[in-house]
């Protein structure tokens, strides 16, 4: 099977190029990451991030045949040849498939990504009904892989101003938490022509999320909360 992989090492390359690898697949090569690891045993200069190999750590986001995904949970079997692998789009490349995620995490940190509750904590747990807890389903499971945000045209144009789908999903995770008391501040912070409203519901984020999450839905819920408080 042929893999065509984006290569760039600023230490020696003037510009990026695509390198082809022809690999005889082995029965153990179930996921794309298995193949990449095998390529690395013959060419140790191929650089990528990986850790959990089960889709929970969010390390190995990359662009696979034009679509962002996690290599470790992408079966090789279904991929069209040659398999073209590139770094996540819209972020500066450090080397090969490794991108600089600074901007992505900056946006994440900008949404006050922690629970705010200024009441003195009780001696036991704060109570939350199963229904209130269910509001967090689909919002807390994000693995911060950046597949969605780097597929979002609004983020490409305004990475410093638009929070992006992953950051907004995170913002929603706290807005939706019955224990959080900063709803008004959170909404104020997003009430801005760029931070939230650059999302034009293009839905790339939903299509691409390897964890099956739906940032657009969360974004629309935030918009709904804003409308509700103005009336």
């Amino acid at each position, binding site marked *: 099977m042929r893999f065509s992989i984006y290569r760039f090492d600023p230490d020696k390359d003037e510009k990026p190029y695509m390198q082809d690898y022809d690999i005889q697949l082995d029965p153990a090569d179930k996921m794309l990451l298995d193949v990449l690891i095998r390529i690395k045993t013959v060419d140790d*200069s191929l650089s990528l991030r990986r850790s959990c*190999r089960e889709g*929970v750590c969010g390390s190995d986001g990359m662009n696979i045949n034009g679509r962002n995904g996690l290599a470790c949970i992408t079966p090789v079997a279904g991929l069209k040849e040659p398999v073209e692998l590139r770094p996540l789009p819209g972020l500066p490349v450090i080397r090969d498939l490794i991108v600089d995620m600074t901007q992505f995490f900056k946006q994440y940190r900008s949404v006050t990504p*922690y629970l705010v509750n200024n009441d003195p904590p009780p001696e036991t747990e704060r109570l939350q009904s199963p229904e209130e807890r269910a509001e967090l389903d689909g919002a807390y499971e994000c693995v911060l892989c950046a597949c969605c945000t780097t597929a979002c045209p609004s983020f490409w144009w305004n990475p410093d101003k638009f929070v992006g789908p992953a950051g907004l999903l995170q913002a929603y995770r706290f807005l939706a938490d019955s224990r959080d008391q900063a709803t008004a501040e959170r909404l104020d912070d997003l009430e801005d022509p760029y931070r939230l409203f650059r999302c034009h519901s293009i839905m790339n984020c939903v299509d691409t999320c390897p964890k099956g999450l739906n940032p657009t839905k969360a974004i629309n819920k935030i918009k709904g909360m804003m409308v509700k408080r103005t009336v």
Partner: protein
Amino acid sequence: MAIVKRKFDVVIVGAGGAGMRAALQLSEAGFNVAVLSKVFPTRSHTVAAQGGIAASLGNVTEDNWHWHMYDTVKGSDYLGDQDAIEFMCRQASEVVYELEHFGMPFDRLENGKIYQRPFGGQSQNFGGAQATRSCAAADRTGHALLHTLYQRNVHANTQFFVEWMGLDLIRNEQGDVTGVTALEMETGNVVALQARAVLLATGGGGRVFQASTNAFINTGDGLGMAARSGVPLEDMEFWQFHPTGVYGAGVLISEAVRGEGGYLLNKDGERFMERYAPNAKDLASRDVVSRALTMEIKEGRGCGNNADHLLLKLNHLDADVINKRLPGIREIAIKFAQVDPIDEPIPVIPTAHYMMGGIPTNLYGQVVAPYKTGPEEVVQGLYAVGECACLSVHGANRLGTNSLLDIIVFGRAAGKQIIEDLKKNPHHKKLNEAAIDRSLTRLDRLDNQKDGENVAQVGEALRKTMQEHCGVFRFPDLLKEGVVKINEISERVEHTEIKDKSKVFNTARVEALELNNLVEVALATMVSAEARNESRGAHAREDFPKRDDDKWLKHTLYFSEGRRLDYKPVRLKPLTVESFPPKARTY
């Protein structure tokens, strides 16, 4: 060669649950803390923990910390230190409530309290009915916990050094730890970080085995750093093999599946755990269940064409329960085993999972080693918590969901202890240049090696040897041979070569450096296992099938220098309650 030096109050190596819980304590107290991690904090392997965190909240069944303590002592096959176990179990409820207050999204019961599920080895009333003790966020408890801790650290403004790899401890002539050397992956720069306290929180080393539930980054780096600097490693023969790794892939299927009512079947469709553990059945302790699976396979009752795995059945459970409580498991089974557990059982096999041994510490996270006055002398300036540490609260076998508890209780305790110790140590101690040179020499050797062996190849040999010679059951000849082989491999590690010479994000270099740590872990494991002539917890010797308390109720200490062993007593005396004396262990 002069290298850049930087100064902090505290350097924490590792940003998993243990490192981040300690960091939070220190950042909130206003200290200048640097937290190093090979990966972005939320990518640490704590994120993969599924089933829960143990605490006797009693939200579902009556419970108390003393019962939890009893179960943990028994689970440890009496090798656990009872003072540490009491300390952990007593604080469990408090730290879980604290996590909830931090915002952790636990599942909830109808009355709004934290959801709890039963796990193996949990009992009421000192060995009575099954207890329900594991607090859970679906089957993503580790993810919920790790992200919550990262979020709190964002709030506390903790300084993270992301994609920095700690290389070696810097110790002075008195043996005090005064800093660490580290590699900044993006630039390839090596930096000496000077600190008044260094905390190792580097997690497990499960990647010494071929089939493992552990992440690629779990290479036992903290253990390698400790061992190379003269600190011994404790109880390294004890590795937990989890009964239910996905056959062929190694990915974990949580015990939560059995906690929610799933069970194991052999090829005859027999629920075989009833034979091995008539009371607890599928929820017996993990060492017991893993041995049962191995026996079933050995005696020809395995499933599949090669009769080499067993089946984990949960399709009798309500689809709603699976979707609500075990959604991650369903996702894993579909992706890695190509079966939907709502319809079909999952093929499973015992898989290396957790390292009970590690860097010896006391209750406060201070590293202790034999020095001048006894086996438990504090190494000044050095601390360890989490899976890389050995207190020991898990002894010879860890109970499920006790590790997330361990990392939080002792992460917090170590943070507090460091704050106390810093008061007594207002000044940084000098960095020893010779110690820094050790890291630089290692890197130079690697960069200049000619005609060396490929890192992946040597790593593969190491993993294969561990798998074949030091698995669920251990045989005297295989162990003896294993020691010889691992010694040979350790020679090969000194002559590895990387083709990639780039300064920028050189992952080949990182993997070569990780191999230096893996080999320390492998050596310690094989040498300690070969010497322990008894069966206890996860260490099952074919030639010594019984536990031998007269000779072996003691902790192993492995010293890298001279590859020699020493032993120290188990602390059988708890802090306040009566000791639980060793007795026969049945489930």
